[in-house]
């Protein structure tokens, strides 16, 4: 005990001596390596000392409580620290504080979440979100009132005895069937929506087709051009010029567009054809409630219809910088966090205007490059894979 105390004061002394030094050390001030190494160990020492001191404090506190208990016992008052009542009360406090915290969270952090979806299926998503939130919140609150409330109410008291109550078939049937019914409702609701959102047979005719292809670490976009048909592509044809490996020997590929962002008209059904050149990525536009993985070797699809232009969203959210972004949402490598592309929703006339401005990839330039690549002059070198944003 005494040795420990001595040790403790020694630590405290070191702490006082070093702390003035330490507090002065700012990140970035570590000029030369010597002071850097020293600074690091000082920091480590500092925190070790702090932790040991706190621990020591706790141990001493524990001792004091023990001594107190022993002395009251010796004095015959039999007044031990009522840990049972303390813990029970803490559960009650936890219940109140916890419920407050929950509503605070919903209010404060909930306000930071996504705005209402400007897409057809997104509205269904939002409705389902609200229904699920209400149901689960209700269950959350009720069960916690019961759980923590019972913990407080039925704490051990002098002379109290528990009620022998091993089972009640009727009660159990009730609380099996009520969740079953509620979940059935949610399943039906969810199933109908899921079907509507993803079943290809249920989608609108003649959607605008956009191909989005992920690779480490950016997205490539392709529009079918005036013929409305995407040219075929083959990963073996990929070169630094022909990043998607489009087969330009076919006529349908000659008018394909490859813009650097995704632009869509409002109110028109869209079919995203998703692909990947290397590993799995995931095309995720949270603001539009869109997500589908992109899988090498297998095309995937997502259908949706935007209902508001980006400008309208800016006005509605009061955020002049609002943008839809398509993120990568499947771990795909070192720069996974830095792989997004802008999605702009325009009014129909603006969209047509934008479309007119786009040049097909199969330009004279491209032709030349392809020819030279074929003759082997330009080896297939990796595309620029810098981490730069692609918008």
């Amino acid at each position, binding site marked *: 005990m005494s040795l420990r105390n001595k040790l403790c004061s020694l630590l405290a002394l070191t702490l006082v001596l070093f702390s003035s030094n330490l507090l002065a050390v700012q990140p970035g001030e570590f000029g030369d390596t010597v002071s*850097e190494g020293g600074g690091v160990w000082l920091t480590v020492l500092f925190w070790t000392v702090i932790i040991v001191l706190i621990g020591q404090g706790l141990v001493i506190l524990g001792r004091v409580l023990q001594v107190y208990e022993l002395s009251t016992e010796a004095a015959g008052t039999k007044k031990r620290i009522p840990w049972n009542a303390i*813990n029970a009360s803490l559960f009650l406090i936890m219940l109140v504080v916890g419920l407050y915290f929950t509503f605070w969270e919903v209010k404060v952090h909930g306000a930071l979440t996504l705005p209402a979806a400007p897409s057809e299926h997104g509205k269904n998503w939002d409705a389902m979100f609200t229904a699920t939130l209400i149901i689960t919140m209700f269950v959350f609150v009720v069960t916690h009132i019961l759980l923590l409330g019972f913990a407080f109410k039925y704490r051990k008291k002098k002379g109290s*005895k528990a009620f022998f109550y091993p089972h009640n078939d009727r009660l159990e049937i009730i609380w099996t069937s009520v969740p079953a019914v509620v979940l059935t409702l949610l*399943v039906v609701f969810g*199933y109908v929506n899921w079907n509507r959102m993803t079943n290809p047979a249920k989608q609108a005719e003649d959607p605008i087709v956009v191909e989005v292809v992920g690779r480490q670490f950016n997205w490539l976009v392709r529009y079918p051009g005036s013929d409305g048909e995407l040219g075929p592509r083959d990963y073996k044809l990929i070169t630094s010029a022909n990043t998607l490996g489009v087969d330009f020997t076919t006529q349908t590929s000659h008018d394909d567009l490859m813009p650097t962002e995704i632009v869509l008209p409002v109110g028109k059904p869209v079919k995203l054809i998703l692909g990947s050149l290397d590993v799995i990525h995931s095309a995720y536009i949270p603001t539009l409630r869109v997500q589908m993985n*992109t*899988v090498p070797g297998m095309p995937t699809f997502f259908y949706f219809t935007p209902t508001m232009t980006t400008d309208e969203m800016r006005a509605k959210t009061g955020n002049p910088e609002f943008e839809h972004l398509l993120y990568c949402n499947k771990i795909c490598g070192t720069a996974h966090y830095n792989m997004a592309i802008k999605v702009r929703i325009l009014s129909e006339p603006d969209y047509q205007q934008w479309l007119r401005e786009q040049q097909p990839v199969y330009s004279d330039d491209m032709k030349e490059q392809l020819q030279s690549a074929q003759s082997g002059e330009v080896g*297939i070198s990796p595309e620029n894979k810098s981490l730069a944003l692609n918008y």
Partner: protein
Amino acid sequence: MATIATHEPTGLHDNLAHTPDGHHHKETFLTKYVFSQDHKMIAKQFLITGMVMGIIGMGLSLLFRIQLAYPDQTFPFLEALLGRFAEGGRISPSFYLALVTIHGTIMVFFLLTAGLSGTFANLLIPLQIGARDMASPFMNMLSFWFFFVACLVMLGSFFIEAGPASSGWTVYPPLSALPQAIPGSGLGMTFWLISIFLFIISQVLGGINYISTVLNMRTQGMTMTKMPLTTWALFLTAVLGLLSFPVLVSAVVLLIFDRSFGTSFYLSDIFIGGQALPNTGGSPILYQHLFWFLGHPEVYIVIMPTFGIVSEVLSVNARKPIFGYRAMIMSMMAIAGLSFIVWAHHMFVSGMNPFLGGVFMITTLIIAVPSAVKAFNYIATLWRGNINFTPQMLFAIGMVSFFISGGLTGIWVGNAALDINLHDTYFVIAHFHLVMGSAAVFGMFAGIYHWFPKMYGRLMSKRSGYLHFWLTFVAAYLVFFPMHFLGLDGVPRRYYEFTAFGMFEEWIEVNKLITIAAIVGGAAQLIFIYNFFRSIFWGERATQNPWKSNTLEWTTPVERLHGNWPGDIPHVHRWPYDYSKPGAEDDFIPQTVPYSETISSNVPYDFGFHGDAEGFTHEFYKGNKEERTPAKD
């Protein structure tokens, strides 16, 4: 106070596979502590190894939490600690991914699968069913050593030049298959695969043992419906593991083939590093099916043992029978069965046929029903109890709270349509850290506090336990609750920083809150570690049955003999939950007490009699009308 006298077995029960027949007299340090074949020692080996892994896993998470909360500050100590992985005091993006990968792997497999099942199945199955040891003590020892080597290999991958595996704990190919895709997919991934392979061997060896022990070595009178829920849970867990881990083997083996032998099980049409790979015809989705066929049962492998632990702890400390014993068993069986047909809910937006998504949504939401039943039964167990707030009771109540919170968000992500926008966001992180990272861990803590006396013959300090619980409880909610809202804002998981596009910048403040709460929560674990190791040597000595519990393990002497009981193995006469039975002397009646000694408290239900008590007769009640309907208060 182990005296040799109590050591000497007298009559031995005939169902033993293993008897304490004196060979422990020659026990050396090596056979006693290292290559031990005693189930209690192996349990402690699993526990301590699991705890060490858990601490490491937690340390890794604190490292990446620092990166998330302070993305543009430098921390020189990181460079001192991690060297080339954190040049200039900032964790590198690829090492960030390595951290989350190894954190997830360690926590899910090494702490919450091996550390949890390994500890409690080994410790409790023989003790609670009345067996001298496991069916095969030797296989049991092998199980631990395979696990131990798996841990070493996994940790060893930190010393590889390019760093450990970094494709997430689910290691989806092609990312995990192609070394050119990410540095960690080189040698680091090979280590990961070897480690997991060893780990699966360990699980299968252990699982076979647990199952055969439960099925064959129960003492006389211990029918399946008199088994404590803990044993039931551990038994069903072992069944799940035995059926699902081999499927992970196939996933891993095919991945090894793709990586090293040029096959194309998972690879197709890939252009990477400026090169078109020759592989065609493979499917990355195949891997996901195989992985999640294990992966979903795996999450129940993690939570199920804690169902058992918590059932026991709640009942003992509320001094009440667990509510709905049979419903508890049935719901666990339902969960175990259903957990095999829900795996593709992890793949709603993987690109698989949307029709499948619909089917798996239905099965997934069905599994929420038995889960709900469990939660309600726990609450009903507390109702009108006489609750004694030991640390294990606090943790058990905390477990129920987290299980409810996390289970409810399961309903969100289990809904395929909602999952479109929630998949792979922080919402999923919140979901599974509440059910796994909090509920299962709390269940494990409850088990440790409760059965510590059975492992070390001493008690852990209660006051430290209280502090440990309250700090951890509050910290865990502060860490994981706000994450739901990040997810609802569409913040993807596994992002090195949120500042790349400016869209998620508002969450950095929240990240700071989370990180600080995580550090506090981490510090609270130091209290636990201190308490644990101090109590091993200096804790208050335990009595034989410190919690006044009914189950068989508390009939063994405090000294923890090889072979468990000095004399005959006790016989079992009743279910394990006769707490506060009206008419009984004490507020508990151990399983070893025959009904003939408790005439005053018997009820017709004890004999499986459901009907009108008036019409009930039994040999104990020879014509005595008074005693026929006892217990009416």
